Every structure is written in structure tokens, then in C-alpha cells.
């Protein structure tokens, strides 16, 4: 199946300090001259200094796992064989923040990637993306500057699972974009089998901002646990999506208009539903303490007049269709879970049946897709007890399904699992 055409990017705004989104308020792409005027030139930095700086601002990876950048830098053996991989494979349908960065401010990504590569003593930098617009913008940026001649921009089609870092590495190396069955860290064996520092696009842009502004200015805004800013893709009621740059630590309810009286999805389609935003703050450490993960930064509150259980069912069907088919528990278990959620919508099933199916999934796959899907469904059912009861009693909650959560069309399922012996 051909990949869907790249959607137009949503608006992007900075609330408070604009750093990554500096100068992009009218949606324009920032060329090299403008970039240098806004951000200056990043001086080369040695590894010890980069580790010290990323430690001081507690910089966390912005792809999903929120792994500390300094720890990852220290774990990656430096040397001319070492590879740097910028992962721009944004496969989550509700997320636009990485494509926003790559298309609007590509030189920040290159500044960060080249600084990391320099610190690690290598010139091997690969940027991998799914979509045309990002590939085009990055390739133009590479041509605009003199120091990026060795940077490879690799475009590979792929879905949700292929954004996982090990899947992205395999795609870059020309294999099917699937995570391997044995969990080998990229710092041990990544691109071309070499030690690889791999992280998300936004992480590298944050490194560039940190290097150009210095620790003190970087840490002048945001939560002391994770200072600076972060990018979110916000779907609030009928107004989404919007990519926002916010200082970390901002109250989540402050991003959502009106009364905070409805369920919010934190962390996208591998994330968690909460009954209200309450006193949650947009900070990865603070959310983690509350048992939540920001993942790739998707925050969504569907409008009050849609059938929320139907929205959850539609996303669950899509998650099932996104199973790469490598691992049996995911390939068979996610469609079974999706059917059970459909049955809840039709009032034919009890939530305990869906919870039992979801509980079987975590830890039973090569990647975290079954874990993420299970968390999405099981938290939804905990939050939506009233809706589930209405559907059970009346077969409906009385609200139409509006499709507030974006779900790409679900194509036909391949007839067999990939890999394995079958």
C-alpha cells in the first residue's frame, strides 16, 4: 500500500519562551542565513563538556522513552566508526512536532546532530524520515551549508512501529522496518552494525538550543527537574491539532480551554487516559511520578459531544492494524482486544473482558507496541466507566462518533505474519 500523502502541517506556536520555534510563527521555513541570525553558530564541543551540559539541564530524549541524553552519550563508544542517527520517523498519526521541526527549522536539527557527531569523534550522521516534506527540507538544509556534506538524509516509508529506534536502524540499513527480536542497544550495535547514538529529531534540536544559549539561559525557564521547553501536539476540543512549544512544568489544564471536567489522553496512542488534567504538569519527570508518560508529546482532549468509547475503539482498531505481524501475541492479541472494545461500544460485552485481554499484552513483543496499546485501552476503560455503562445499558451513549482522534484508514491485513517460521 502506498503511504498516505503528507498532511499539511498544523499551526505551531510557542507559549512563553520560543526556542525551537523561534522565528517560525508565520509557518515559514528558516533558511541558513536567518537561522544564524536567530541562533548564532554552534561552536564544536568536546564529549566531556557535552555530557556535563546535558547532565546539568537533565536533557531527556524526546522520542518516547525519555532516556537521559547524557547517559546515552556516555554509553556510546566514541570514534570514527560511530554513527549518529537522527530519528525523524514520526509515525504517530496524532503527532506533528517532529515534522514541524524538520520542515520549519531544519538547521537546528543539523546543528545538534553535527555537534553530537563532533563530540563523539565521527562524521557519520544519518537522518531518517517517513515523509516527503521533511526529507526535502532537510536535503535543502544540507546543501545550504558547508559543514553537512557527509550528512545522509534517508527517506523510508513506514507506520507506527517502524518509528521505534531499532526498526528505524534496520530500515536505514535496507532491511524491513521492524524491531529485532533480541534487544540489542543501538550504542552496542546500530547503523551498519556500528555503535550508534540514536535519538529523536527534537532531542537534537534541543541540544543545538542548549549549545547556542548555554546552560544558564537554557535552564532559565521550565521545571527544575527538566528545565527548558518541550514540544507538544495538542488536540483540544475542536481546535486541534496545534504544535506548541511550552516551558516544562506548565500546568496541563492551562493548555486546555474551559472547564477541566473531561478525560484527557496524555502521551498519544501509546499513552494513558486521565479523568481530568487536574494538577498534572507538562514535565516528563513529574508525569512519571504520577505514573504517566509524555511519550512523543501528544496531548488530546476530545470534544464533549463525541462518543468517547467509539473514539477509543477506532484508535484500538488502528493500533491492531499497525501490528507489524512479527510477534504472535501482538498480531493475534491486538485484533482480539479491538473486537472486544467494539463489543463494548455495541453493549455486548463487559469491560472486564477487555481488561483481561489488555492485561495479557505487556512484555510480549519485540517492541513496546502491545504494551502501549494495552495501556491506552485499559486506562480508557478505567476512566470511561460511565460511558461503558451507558453503552452496556442502551447500546449507545447518545453522542455520535465524530472522529476527533485522527485515525488513518485501516488497510487490508497481510495474510500472514512476517518473519517467524510460518
Amino acid at each position, binding site marked *: 500500500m502506498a503511504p498516505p500523502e503528507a498532511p499539511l502541517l498544523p499551526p505551531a506556536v510557542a507559549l512563553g519562551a520560543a526556542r525551537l520555534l523561534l522565528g517560525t510563527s508565520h509557518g515559514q521555513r528558516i533558511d541558513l542565513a536567518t537561522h544564524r541570525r536567530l541562533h548564532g553558530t554552534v561552536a564544536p564541543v568536546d564529549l566531556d563538556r557535552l555530557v556535563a551540559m546535558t547532565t546539568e539541564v537533565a536533557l531527556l530524549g524526546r522520542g518516547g522513552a525519555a532516556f537521559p541524553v547524557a547517559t546515552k552519550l556516555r554509553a556510546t563508544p566514541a570514534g570514527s566508526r560511530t554513527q549518529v542517527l537522527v530519528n525523524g520517523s514520526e509515525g504517530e498519526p496524532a503527532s506533528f512536532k517532529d515534522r514541524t521541526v524538520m520542515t520549519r527549522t531544519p538547521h537546528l536539527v543539523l546543528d545538534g546532530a553535527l555537534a553530537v557527531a563532533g563530540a563523539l569523534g565521527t562524521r557519520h550522521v544519518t537522518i531518517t524520515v517517513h515523509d516527503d516534506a521533511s526529507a526535502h527540507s532537510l536535503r535543502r538544509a544540507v546543501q545550504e551549508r558547508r559543514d553537512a556534506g557527509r550528512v545522509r538524509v534517508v527517506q523510508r516509508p513506514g507506520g507506527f512501529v517502524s518509528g521505534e529506534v531499532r526498526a528505524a536502524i534496520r530500515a536505514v540499513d535496507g532491511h524491513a522496518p521492524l524491531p529485532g*527480536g*533480541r534487544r540489542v542497544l543501538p550504542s552496542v550495535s546500530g547503523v551498519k552494525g556500528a555503535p550508534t547514538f540514536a535519538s529523536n529529531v527534537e532531542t537534537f534540536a534541543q541540544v543545538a538550543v542548549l549549545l547556542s544559549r548555554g546552560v544558564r539561559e537554557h535552564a532559565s525557564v521550565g521545571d527544575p527537574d527538566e528545565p527548558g521547553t518541550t514540544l507538544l501536539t495538542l488536540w483540544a476540543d475542536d481546535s486541534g491539532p496545534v504544535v506548541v512549544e511550552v516551558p516544562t512544568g506548565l500546568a496541563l489544564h492551562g493548555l486546555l480551554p474551559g472547564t477541566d471536567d473531561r478525560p484527557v489522553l496524555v502521551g498519544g496512542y501509546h499513552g494513558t487516559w486521565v479523568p481530568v488534567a487536574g494538577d498534572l504538569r507538562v514535565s516528563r519527570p513529574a508525569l512519571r511520578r504520577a505514573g504517566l508518560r509524555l511519550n512523543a508529546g501528544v496531548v488530546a482532549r476530545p470534544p464533549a459531544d463525541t462518543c468517547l468509547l467509539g473514539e477509543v475503539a477506532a484508535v484500538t482498531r488502528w493500533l491492531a492494524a499497525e501490528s507489524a505481524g512479527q510477534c504472535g*501475541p501482538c498480531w493475534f*492479541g491486538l485484533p*482480539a482486544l479491538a473486537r472486544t472494545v467494539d463489543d463494548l461500544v455495541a453493549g455486548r460485552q463487559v469491560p472486564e473482558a477487555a481488561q483481561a485481554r489488555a492485561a495479557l499484552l505487556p512484555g510480549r513483543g519485540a517492541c513496546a507496541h502491545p504494551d502501549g496499546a494495552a495501556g491506552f485501552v485499559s486506562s480508557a476503560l478505567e476512566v470511561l466507566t460511565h460511558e461503558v455503562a451507558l453503552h452496556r445499558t442502551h447500546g449507545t451513549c447518545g453522542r455520535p462518533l465524530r472522529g476527533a482522534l485522527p485515525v488513518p484508514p485501516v488497510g487490508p491485513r497481510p495474510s500472514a505474519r512476517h518473519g517467524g517460521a510460518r
Partner: protein
Amino acid sequence: MRLEIDWTRCDGHGLCARLLPELVDLDEHGFPVLRTHDVTAALVPHARRAVSACPVLALRLVDPGPRG
């Protein structure tokens, strides 16, 4: 010792559940569900038998090392 499954290899043959019912159940699709990854010393011989019986080499017994 720690029992691990390479899920990309596992095809749900189910021999592990027969040979190691103390630790392995099967789900409704025939794929193993581990009650725990940790294998006590008493069960290690049975676990080894299950590992060597797996027709697709999906089951592994690994030494987690001093940190595990």
C-alpha cells in the same frame, strides 16, 4: 536464571507449556504467557528441557549476571 522469549521467532507450538507448566501458560491463541521470568534453581533442569525442545529456538535461559 531468567527465561526469555524471542517473540519474533515464537510460533506458538506450545511445547514449553507442556514441559514447564510451572512457569508457562498458553493464551487463547496458543502463545506462551510466562508467570514469571525468574527460574528457581529447582526448575532450571526443566527449563533447559523446554528451551531445547522449542522447535524455533525462541525460548532462551539467560544468566542475568550479578546485577540481575
